[in-house]
């Protein structure tokens, strides 16, 4: 902290003055050195700070650039008042056009894209989990819209508390696991970045405790942690209205201070993994829990749909597993802000300077013609343009690599495999009507028109349903599925490697396809046949050019153990489908 370091520096300066000691940098540097370093840091980070305004220029807030191509983070309660296109000022004094990309209404985060440059200055994220009470921080932003040249205002403070939870304001704006600071935060700072004293971006300032002293700095403001933002940012790039996650079990703090599971839905994944009321929840999302508040705090940083690790303890011992988070709100449209966040127009007068958080009623804002195509409206999306952009980026190369197999679209695949570790062999046959699995012990068959979890092989659970989806993806134009949505980047369980996810709805079957940039072909798929049953979780490795692209290995994730078992593909045969066999076949309708 500057004050105590300042005091030390003061004493040390005195010592230096009497010429007895010489200190290097670090905690021993003098006040003058510290100030010089601070000035340099601010000069380095200020160019990434954005002044976010509605096209009409009244009101506004702050933001921060996170990439050279212009992506910037702000608060939902700032951008929701700005419209789909907005104006952004940087400290070079220039005004840029920007378009809304994605929003997270619950977490009060919005992703916008500044336009017109590919070399925007941007900030470097730090590790907000390492932040401690007492750390020095710098808040940059646009309080009271003071700077007409968009030079950000800098306020200094310390971290007052970490892992803070702020109850939802109104219905949905909820700040969990946030950083409490005493740096001065005022209207207009909203959406602006919080930096540590070395200039690493650690949060977005969005909220403060306001009470009897009015809506101005009260010494207690809250920043959304960068950890949470980084978990959402690649989902926000999808142009969706990104939802937060919930679990289908509840916890409370037991009398002995442990975090005890209270209720568990009996059709939930957690129940199937053995979680029962009374069990102790030891950790969630890789963080140890000491109270039910801890659980609420950590749960709030995750987007819906991702897998989160947890550890629970019952009389048999400790168990580790993962659960996929369910959607918290399921927004169809960007929700309305609570009343207190809405603009308070003063009758008979202009908007006061100090109401930059206020959404603004822009009258027919002028959008430059070259940018109008960058926004597309669609239900449950913030900006469908960006979803199409990323979906096509992933699926067009896939289509391209499958183009040569056009004539084999409806062919039946016959895959001979060997389970390398225990020398079990078998065959997997997939066609337009169903998929069959033959092992030395069992045969099982999953028909396309009547998919049942009970048809799956107990040895390799889910392989048949997953293989059917795989066959459908490779034979169909992806646009023919009822829904194809780009989700964003996430960490694939159990390997933990980053992948990009495309969600496909095919009748009642939902699948999540995973891609990385090594190949246009997928690295895996998780298939949900119906609620109440475990997902089929299949991984692919070593795609080869065959008549249709075929993997060298097929991985099956065991839902109980989270272990990945690899089937080595010994032979992959493609048999063109007999031309007279088309009765009652839904694929025959596919052009």
């Amino acid at each position, binding site marked *: *902290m500057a004050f105590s370091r300042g005091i030390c520096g003061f004493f040390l300066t005195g010592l230096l003055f009497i010429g007895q000691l010489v200190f290097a940098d670090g905690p021993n540097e003098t006040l003058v050195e510290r100030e010089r370093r601070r000035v340099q840091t601010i000069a380095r980070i200020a160019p990434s700070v954005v002044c976010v305004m509605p096209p009409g220029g009244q009101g506004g807030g702050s933001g921060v650039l996170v990439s050279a191509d212009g992506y910037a983070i702000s608060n939902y309660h700032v951008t929701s008042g700005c419209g789909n296109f907005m104006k952004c000022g940087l400290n070079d004094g220039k005004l840029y056009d920007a378009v809304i990309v994605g929003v997270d209404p619950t977490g009060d985060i919005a992703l916008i894209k500044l336009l017109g440059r590919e070399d925007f200055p941007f900030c470097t994220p730090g590790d907000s989990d390492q932040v401690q009470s007492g750390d020095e921080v710098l808040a940059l932003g646009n309080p009271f819209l003071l700077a007409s040249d968009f030079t950000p205002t800098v306020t200094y403070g*310390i971290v007052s*508390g970490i892992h803070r939870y702020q109850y939802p304001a109104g219905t949905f704006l909820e700040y969990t696991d946030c950083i409490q600071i005493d740096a001065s935060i005022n209207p207009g700072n909203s959406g602006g970045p919080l930096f540590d004293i070395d200039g690493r971006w650690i949060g977005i300032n969005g909220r403060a405790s306001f009470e009897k002293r009015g809506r101005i700095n009260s010494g207690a403001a809250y920043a959304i942690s960068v950890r949470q933002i980084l978990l959402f940012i690649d989902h926000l790039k999808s142009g969706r209205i990104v939802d937060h996650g919930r679990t289908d079990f509840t916890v409370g703090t037991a009398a002995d201070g442990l975090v005890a599971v209270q209720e568990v839905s009996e059709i939930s994944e957690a129940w199937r993994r053995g979680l029962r009321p009374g069990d102790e929840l030891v950790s969630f999302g890789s963080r140890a829990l000491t109270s039910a508040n801890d659980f609420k705090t950590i749960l709030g940083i995750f987007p819906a749909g991702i897998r989160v690790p947890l550890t629970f303890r019952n009389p048999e011992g400790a168990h580790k597993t993962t659960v996929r988070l369910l959607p918290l709100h399921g927004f169809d449209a960007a929700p309305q802000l609570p009343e207190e966040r809405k603009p308070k127009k003063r009758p008979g007068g202009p908007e006061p300077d100090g109401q930059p958080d206020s959404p603004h009623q822009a009258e027919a804002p002028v959008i430059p013609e070259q940018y109008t195509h960058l926004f597309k409206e669609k239900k449950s999306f913030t900006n469908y343009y960006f979803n199409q952009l990323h979906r096509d980026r992933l699926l067009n190369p896939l289509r391209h690599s499958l183009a040569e197999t056009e004539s084999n679209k409806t062919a039946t695949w016959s895959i001979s495999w060997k389970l390398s570790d225990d020398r079990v062999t078998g065959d997997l046959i997939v066609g337009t009507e169903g998929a069959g699995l033959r092992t030395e012990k069992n045969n099982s068959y999953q028909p396309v028109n009547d998919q049942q979890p009970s048809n799956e092989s107990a040895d390799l659970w889910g392989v048949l349903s997953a293989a059917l989806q795989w066959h459908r993806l490779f034979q169909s134009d992806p646009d023919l599925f009822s829904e194809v949505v780009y989700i964003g980047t996430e960490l694939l369980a159990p390997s933990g490697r980053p992948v990009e996810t495309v969600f496909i709805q095919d009748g009642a079957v939902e699948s999540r396809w995973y891609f990385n940039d090594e190949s246009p072909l997928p690295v895996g798929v998780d298939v949900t046949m119906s609620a109440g049953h475990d997902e089929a979780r299949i991984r692919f490795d070593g795609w080869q050019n065959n008549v249709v692209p075929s993997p060298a290995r097929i991985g099956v994730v065991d839902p109980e153990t989270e272990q990945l078992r690899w089937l080595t593909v010994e032979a992959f045969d493609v048999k063109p489908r007999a031309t007279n066999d088309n009765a009652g076949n839904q694929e025959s309708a596919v052009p």
Partner: protein
Amino acid sequence: MNTRVIVKVVVCALLLRCGRADAIVASVPDAEYLAVRAGQQVVVKLFGAGVGTLDSYGSGVLISKEGHVLTVWNHLVNTGFLTAVVPDGRRFRVNVVGTNLEHDVAVLKLETDDDETFDFVDWKATADVLPGESVLAFSNMFHVATGNEPVSVVHGVVACTVSLDAGLGRWIFPVKNPVYVLDAITNNSGAAGGLLTSSAGVPIGMLGREIRHRDTDMWVNYAVPLKGLQPVIAAILDGRRYSSNTSTQDQKSVLSDRQLTAGFGITLLPSIVETTPAYIDRIVTDSVADVAGLRRGDLVLMVGDDVVRSTSDLRERLSGFRRGRPIAVTVNRNEKLETISLRAP
């Protein structure tokens, strides 16, 4: 534990002052965090009853191993049924050990099992700070932390040391000794009773209430110096009543609730707000008030010719009568005014 930590930090600071910086330098950054951790380890969150704009939560500082807690003598203490949450999340019922009006201080005691101990601040090992020195303020402001989460820490500088002419509404800040005025917004909702330390972690004061300056109407952020509280805390812990020499001269004397009950036999409604009307809640049998004919439910309107607007008004008006002097008390009883003559006890 914390006293140890604080002592260590103090020693560090003293060594530094002595110029032996070479021995200390490596521990300086740690010391800063130790100061923060230490402060967070001794501040408790108080929860009780609030009314209107008065909060139902506050702060206190552990000042003994056995669980004595120093806090501001405010409505939370007056209304009773207080709960304290200590830094590790344990909850305790709280009893009031003693209070002192002229220092605006109360000492509480956690209801504990015999063998339970707590980290605490050594209130005897305090120091003076000068204007310009950096300080840390620890409190349960805005009840951001409710369980085992550490309380909030705010940094600031002592702006000056002055006697405050301040208050809130009709309530007048009773402390006449100089207080530390701070440049940071430390005195928020629920912060009263929090801890002020030097940046090195030496305990130096108790955070005060949310009050405004009489002349400027500005909110004042202040802390009562711990040094001035030492004799008060010592007296309360000893079960003695403390009164300073200065208080009789320039301060309006006011009867405490306890004096009012012990002397006159009158117990008033709890003074929840500054303007709580002076309703008599209880009359001690055979007391001065009982003999004179005062009854439960009487609303005291006047003492002599002076209008009584509140319980604190009454406690002020009833002070300063010599023993045996007659006092005319006008009360509203069943929508009728009655004047009753008391003998000062």
